[in-house]
């Protein structure tokens, strides 16, 4: 039933494709198989069955608590937008919000710069070499974020390794303040979040057939030009994917900024935690959550519109 509908839909879309020629013949090789949509359809019960566990978790552990918080922010102590007004009235909170955006952007850009070459190397490697690089990328996941953050604290402290190196090499006369700075927060967060940038870019690069680079070269494109004209546009979905992943993770980051930053580096997640645990101001904390959620949604939608993945892939009919 649904298969018949699907083939009817395909026939209809083929008919829409244009009057100049009929669609690709059935016995013809239609594409290189490179971004081809999967033709097989699943039955509805199968789809529901496969999605149910994840969806239940999403609803009970994410959507329900989030909605409850938003409800609190709008109803307590009195119904209205008073809590939200407070967020924007007090410049301290606006500053924290802007700082959070700035740090998240810095972390994303730094991750991108560091991740792209690694992903490119991975895409050209295979066998043990690829396994080794992948292991290096995933190695940090074997320890908790807390441990990795603590390691940065050890490295960056006044008598730590980095200061030892700097003074030893004569770069600085006395130990420099490295810990509890925005730099420390950015570097440590980049370290933790970089794998989320590497993997999507690697995936996109690996899907680019090697012959495309050859085709670009024989067409007269030097290596830099071929990268700009062919590799980069085709890797863009991976780059944007990784960027969104890292940026959004960084927006809500908690442990690293609170351990490696001073109050001057406070990010919004720390502020929310403070409101809940120290000020016991649930309604205001909930309003902050609401603002953060609004930002995240807005940024995701903006990215989606900006890069138009569908167009990039030539899905435009």
């Amino acid at each position, binding site marked *: 039933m649904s298969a018949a509908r699907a083939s009817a839909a395909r026939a209809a879309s083929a008919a829409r494709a244009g009057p*100049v020629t009929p669609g690709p013949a059935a016995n013809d090789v239609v594409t*290189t198989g490179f971004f081809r949509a999967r033709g097989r359809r699943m039955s509805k019960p199968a789809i529901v069955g496969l999605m149910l566990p994840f969806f239940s978790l999403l609803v009970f552990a994410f959507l329900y608590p989030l909605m409850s918080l938003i409800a609190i922010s709008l109803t307590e102590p009195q119904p209205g937008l008073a809590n939200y007004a407070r967020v924007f009235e007090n410049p301290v909170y606006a500053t924290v919000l802007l700082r959070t955006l700035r740090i998240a952007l810095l972390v994303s850009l730094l991750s991108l710069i560091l991740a792209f070459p690694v992903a490119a190397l991975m895409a050209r490697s295979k066998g043990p070499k690829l396994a080794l690089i992948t292991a290096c990328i995933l190695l940090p996941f074997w320890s908790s974020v807390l441990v990795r953050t603590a390691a940065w604290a050890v490295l960056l402290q006044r008598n730590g390794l980095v200061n030892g190196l700097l003074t030893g090499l004569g770069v600085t006369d006395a130990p420099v303040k490295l810990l509890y700075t925005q730099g420390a927060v950015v570097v440590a967060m980049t370290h933790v979040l970089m794998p989320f940038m590497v993997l999507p870019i690697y995936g996109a690069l690996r899907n680019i057939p090697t012959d495309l680079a050859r*085709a*670009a*070269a*024989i067409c007269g*494109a030097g290596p830099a030009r071929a990268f700009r004209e062919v590799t980069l546009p085709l890797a863009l979905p991976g780059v944007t994917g990784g960027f969104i992943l890292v940026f959004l993770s960084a927006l809500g980051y908690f442990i690293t900024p609170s351990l490696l930053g001073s109050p001057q580096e406070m990010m919004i997640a720390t502020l929310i935690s403070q409101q809940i645990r120290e000020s016991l101001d649930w309604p205001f904390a909930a309003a902050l959550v609401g603002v953060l959620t609004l930002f995240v949604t807005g940024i995701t939608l903006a990215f989606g519109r900006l890069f138009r993945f569908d167009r990039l892939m*030539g899905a*435009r009919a």
Partner: protein
Amino acid sequence: MLAIGAIAGGPSVTAATTGAAISVRGLTRRFGAVVAVDDVSLEIAAGEFIALLGPSGSGKSTVLMSLAGFDLPDAGRILIGGEDCTHLPPHRRNIGMVFQNYTLFPHLSVADNVAFPLKMRGIGRAERRARAEAALEVVRLSGFGARMPRQLSGGQQQRVALARAIVYRPRVLLMDEPLSALDKNLREEMQIEIKRLHSELGITIVFVTHDQGEALTMADRVAILRAGRVQQIAPARTLYERPANLFAAGFIGDMNRIPTTWDGRAAHVAGRALALEAEAAVSAVPPGPAILAVRPERIGVAAPDRPDALPATVTDVVYGGAGTLVIATLDDGAQVRARAPSAALPPLAPGDRVGLVVPPGAALLYPAEAP
């Protein structure tokens, strides 16, 4: 013709002037212990259509990759139009290439794909568009410029790739098994298309294939490669009628290999002596064991008592309409295939005795050892 004029820069440019001669001298390429290309030399004339034919692993693709500049040879030189470009990177060789899997840029429209080489050469947008459209017209895809590659069929994609390869008027066009991903009908259509382009543009074409039929019908000359060495390079007819060695003989068409003893004047097969003409030996054959090579269609099927025929027993008869294949076993055990017009054959059944007639001039003699 109008479109061709636009490609070639105006009607005053005659087809014969566009191709460039290619000279490959002593090309050698090793991958570890494997010698993929072993001292290959080829002289390809300007405007010639040459096919590199061989089984996989014969080195034909490596030769092509060296011509394109994607693979640097360990030894030897490559000259295109008299210019040494052995170590020139691919993007500066100014040659066109069509790959096996279309390799269109999936993020660019058909027109932008075709215009890509022009963009790389700094040609302005308006001229790019006009020339891309003209090239699309040459491959009969006018009006497809706005589409994305994935909206085209395989045959159409390969024609776009062809347009992209000729749009900047290269003097040499390399083709790496360009038709192997297409089905049979489309393949034949594209063969004709490529032949037409070759005669219209006068471009030098080097075409790699493992399909002997394709090589024979399309190319002016065919180079047969095996284990990195050129076995023979000759026009189709020579290749078929006087293969240089047993490998070439077996690779092109069907060939009987009959073990024989050569005494310098006659070949002894199953107790009979066949007198051979002097030119039967393609290369020098020392007296002793040798191989007699005869095309199945040159062998006549006659009565078993004919004195000049080789007596044999029919093992199988394969009726194929116009022609019939008779498989017979000589009295010394060698199997021989004879192809004859069905109408000229008496009714035959397995077990029947026949005489196989090898007319003078039909047999070639090769040394017994593998070439």
